[in-house]
Each structure stands twice: as C-alpha cells, then as structure tokens.
C-alpha cells in the first residue's frame, strides 16, 4: 500500500489550473414533483480520479449518479462528459457504466453471461468476448464460478460479479452506488483496497456514492459532501477532516467538539474567541472570521488533552471540568468532560502504553487543553 500512497500524493489535477475537468455538473437541478433532490449544483471530476459522493440518505447523491448514467434527466443545468453534453443521450449510448447497489445481476444468466452481456450489446466478436470475460473473471478471482447462476453465489461473490460486469466494457467512467453496502464489515474493509487497486490498474475514473464516511475517506482522492441537494464541501479526505468548511461538514465527518462564540480580536490571522460559556479560545487560523461576529470553534477529540492537574500555561485554551463518562475502546480511551456551563467535551487519548501514568476516574476534577492550531474557526 505504500507505493499506492505515493502515487496518490502526486495525483492532484484539481489544484492544477490548467487541468481540464472530465465530468462537470453545471448548475444542475433535479426536481421530482415538489421535491428538489438536487439544487443548482456544480461539481467537477477529473480523469482517473476516485471521487466519492458522501451524504445521508436523501441528500441527492444517488440522483446525481443516476443523472450521469442517464436514468434521470436534469430539470435544469447540464452535465458534460469529456466536453460532450449528455442531455438526450439514452443510458445505453453513454460511455458510462454503473455498479448497482442491489448488484442487479440477471438471475436467469450465469456469471459468464452476466459479464458478457454488455460486450454482446456492442457487437464484439465472440472470440474477443470469451477472452475479455476470462480476463474479468481472473481480475475478480471468480474463474471457477463462471458457470454458476447468481443465486448460487455468496454476497461477496455477487458483488465481484457486479463489479466485473460493469468494468468489462472498459467504460470511461464507472459509477458505483453503495458498492460495499451489502457486505459485512470485514469483507467491506478488504474490498475497499481491492477497488482501489482495480481503479489504479485499469486507469478508470470512479465515482462512488456512499453514506459511510470511513469508506469514502479510505478510497477517494476527493470527497464531495452533500446535504439537501447541495454541495457542502469538495476536498481531499485530509482537508475534509482537518479543515471542514462548515459546521455541517465538521459534524458530519468524524467526531467533533463545537464551541459557539464571538470573535473578540483579530490579529495577524489569529482569532481570539470568547465562547458563549465564557471560555477564552485562541485560534491561529481565523479563516473567514471577522471581529464581533458569531463563529464556531471546532476541534476533534484526539486534539484535546485531558489531565488531572491544570496545565502550567495561561488560561487560554484551557478549561476545568469533571469526568462525566469514560469509554475504554482498547486502542484509545474517550473521556467525556463536563465543563462548568454543562457542555460535555469529548477528548480521546491514545493508549500508547499499557499503564496510564495519569489515571482519571469518574467524577474526578480534570482539565482540558489544546494548542491554538488544533481546531478550526467556522463561520458557516
């Protein structure tokens, strides 16, 4: 996985202003009756990118995928693929293939026939079809299951057949609708890496729809976080986690502590914030905040330190509270610290050694502290 990581790091067409987008949604709106599934949304995806659409159910992510595949037409706006407007092109003429959430394997056909289906529609010669099918079966390690029908396969095998079928035609773009949703946790983790390898080896553009943030973080080059038909943020997994653009994104991805407050001072890009509960916070990166305006200071639990003694430094970024709850998770321990105003702050600490030198217990007095660059200031 190390080599993969290094390739990944150098792949960032989105930060290159000269790079041409491969797929673009331009002001796309989709309404079903009174319901607006997608609202004036714009988005670009680059060639060979592994792109994830992340959101809760009903956020419009599947609708985006279906519009790209050609099952639904946008109510307004347009979708371009490699510079071509897709409007009016039926699904069976689009160079895009989809892996369905339900897999949609044809129950009356063998594994082989399922994989060959798309190739036959192209009118590919028989010999070539056989070669391609064999190649696909090898790719997903199902060679000995070629003659089976879908109901004779396990869930994981079905998922691989669906995958092989959708990549068999070498589409320009592969759309994956909750590709791992039906698998159990262990299989899902294995398959995530298989999907990433496959995407690298075939050099395809993948767009995956998922509601599982871990899945999106593991696999994707970039993630678009959607809510109510709108894009909240498009960024790399690290950016989404460390620099969320809004309260929604910060709360949606991972765990977060949110301190609502007002900016009291801005100097040199740093912000001083006084929280509603009277806590003084200093943040090195003020973001878009301006003095006197309400903001939220968001900080991840692992960036908060808990100790039984007050840290030596000043009163800034420090608060006193009481241990309210302790969740021992093995690799780490999560402390819930109740501050004076009643807000409960989550702080996690890695259990790097087997014995903790500073044991904390229920109802102990405790101090939380964090460094000025550990959190982000959010205006939205």
């Amino acid at each position, binding site marked *: 996985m190390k080599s993969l990581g290094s390739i990944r790091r150098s792949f960032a067409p989105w930060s290159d202003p000269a790079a041409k987008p491969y797929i673009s949604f331009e002001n796309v709106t989709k309404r079903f009756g009174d319901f607006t599934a997608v609202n004036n949304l714009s988005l670009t995806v680059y060639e060979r990118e592994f792109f994830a659409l992340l959101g809760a159910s009903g956020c419009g992510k599947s609708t985006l995928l279906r519009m790209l595949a050609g*099952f639904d037409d946008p109510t307004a706006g347009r979708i371009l693929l490699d510079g071509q407007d897709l409007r009016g092109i*039926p*699904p*069976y003429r689009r160079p*895009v293939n989809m892996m369905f959430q339900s897999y949609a394997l*044809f*129950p009356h056909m063998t594994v082989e026939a399922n994989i060959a289906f798309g190739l036959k529609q192209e009118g590919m010669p028989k010999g070539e079809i056989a070669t391609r099918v064999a190649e696909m079966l090898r790719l997903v390690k199902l060679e000995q299951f070629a003659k089976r029908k879908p109901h*004779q396969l*396990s869930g994981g095998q079905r998922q691989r057949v669906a995958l092989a079928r959708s990549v068999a*035609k070498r589409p320009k773009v592969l759309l994956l609708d909750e590709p791992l949703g039906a698998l159990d946790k262990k299989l899902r983790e294995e398959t995530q890496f298989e999907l990433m390898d496959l995407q690298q080896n075939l050099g395809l553009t993948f767009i995956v729809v998922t509601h599982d943030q871990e899945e999106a973080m593991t696999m994707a080059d970039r993630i678009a976080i959607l809510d109510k038909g709108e894009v909240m943020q498009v960024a790399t997994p690290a950016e989404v986690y460390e620099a969320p653009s809004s309260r929604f994104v910060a709360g949606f991805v991972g765990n977060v502590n949110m301190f609502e407050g007002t900016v009291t001072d801005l100097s040199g890009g740093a912000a001083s914030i006084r929280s509603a509960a009277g806590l003084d916070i200093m943040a090195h990166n003020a973001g878009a905040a301006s003095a006197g305006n309400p903001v939220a200071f968001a900080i991840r639990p692992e960036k908060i330190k808990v100790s039984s003694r007050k840290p030596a430094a000043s009163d800034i970024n420090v608060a006193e509270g009481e241990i309210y709850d302790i969740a021992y998770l093995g690799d780490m321990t999560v402390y819930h610290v109740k501050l004076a105003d009643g807000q409960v702050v989550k702080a996690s600490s890695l259990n790097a050694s087997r014995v903790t030198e500073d044991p904390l217990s229920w109802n102990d007095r405790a101090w939380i502290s964090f460094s000025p660059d550990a959190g982000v200031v959010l205006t939205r």
Partner: protein
Amino acid sequence: MNSTWSRFNITSIVLGFAFLYLPIVLLVIFSFNESKLVTVWAGFSTKWYVSLFSNRGLIDAAWVTIRVGLISATVATVLGTFAALTLTRYTRFRGRVLFSGMVFAPLVMPEVITGLSLLLLFVAVGLDRGFVTVTLAHITFSMCFVAVVVQSRLLTFDRSLEEAAMDLGAPPVKTFFQITLPVILPAIISGWMLAFTLSLDDLVIASFTSGPGATTLPMKIYSQVRLGVTPEINAACTILIGIVAVGVIAASVVNKRREVQRLRDEQAALRN
C-alpha cells in the same frame, strides 16, 4: 404449543380435507359402477368409459373446448401481459383510471352479466355465434386474470435489472426481451395455465356466447346433468380430474425439486 391444540388442528385439517375430497373420490368410484344408478354400487365395470369413447357428442365438445382453451389462453396471455405492463409501467396516461377499472371489473363481474353483455355485442354487430365468439369472450375475461397474475410479479420486479441492461448498452426493446421477459416468464406461464383452466371450466359465458357447432364440454355435461345423473358423466369427469391431478402434481414435484436444488445451491454458496 400444547398437545390439545395440535390435536384440534389435526382434527380440523383431516375433517376439512375429507370434506374437500370425499365428493370427488365418490364421483370417481361410482364411475366404475356396473349399475346405471349412480348411487347404488353393483360391482366394478369400465363399461361407461367404453361408451364414453363412442359418444361423439362428448368427444366433439371436448375438442372444441381444448381448441377454444388453447387459443384464448394464448391470446389472453399476450393481452394480459400487455395490460399488466401498462398498469405497472405507465403510471400516467389519459384514461388510466378507466383502463384499470376495465381490467379489474371482470374479476368481480357475475358471469351471467359478462356473458349477456358479450352476447348482445355480438348480436348488435351481426357476428354469428359460434367458435369465434366463445373464443373472443374467453379471451376477454381471462386476460384480466392473467393481467393480475403478471402484475403482481411485475410489482416485485427489481427495476434496476432493466437499468443495468440499458446501462450495459441494451436498447429498451432488447432489454425487454432479454431481461424482463425471461425474469417474469414463470408468472406469464402460470397466467397462461390459469387462463386455460378458466376457459376449460367456463359454462355460463360459453352458454351465452356459443352457437351451434361450438358446444363446449361444460355445456355438454351441463345439458346431460340436467337430464339426470349418469355414470358416463362420472367417467368423463374422472378423466378430466385425472388429467388435472397428474398435471398439477407433476408441476409441483418439478417445482419442489427445483426449490430443493436452489436451497442446496444457496447453502453451498454460503459455505465457500
């Protein structure tokens, strides 16, 4: 479950099935009765079967019935499948309420009304009553039953199968014939069998819409029954029951085998 309850259950099942089957069993037994009196046993004989096979009227009627049944079931299956597709796939078109009303109404329509109205239509357009009119009538009422059977299958049909086929490059018509049709085929076949049975079974509508030369078996049996019960009719009934029983049992054995195989496959799939 305690034992008194299950004893009660067994008793009600045994009595219930006795009620369902005893009349049929008695009918079959008395088809082998030597005596002309259906209800007095006078020894075993197959003479009624012999006389049955020399009864031209009954044999002709049987032929008419089978031909009407085959033609009407086949046409009704096509029309009923179309109707089912319309009902499930086209949720909006002008006159949809009327259409679904016309599909479901014949299911609850007393046969006498259906028969009467069709007859009056045939008289109004001057179509002579006979083979054609019975067949048309049977198509009309059995297509609605086919539509219901196929519709209930289509409602559980996973539309993403069709989307997947189109996504892989199959145009709609091809998708229908390569994916939709094969998947719903079992329902279409049971629709056909239902239509065929309804046609074979129908007395009332056939009586209204049939004419000279197109007497169906139920009409023939009915007219003979009205004249009195004869062992010959028992013999005819026994043959019909035999055919149906063999057919249904064979079908269910095949089904059962397939089901067992399927379960075994699924278990095997889970193991590897």
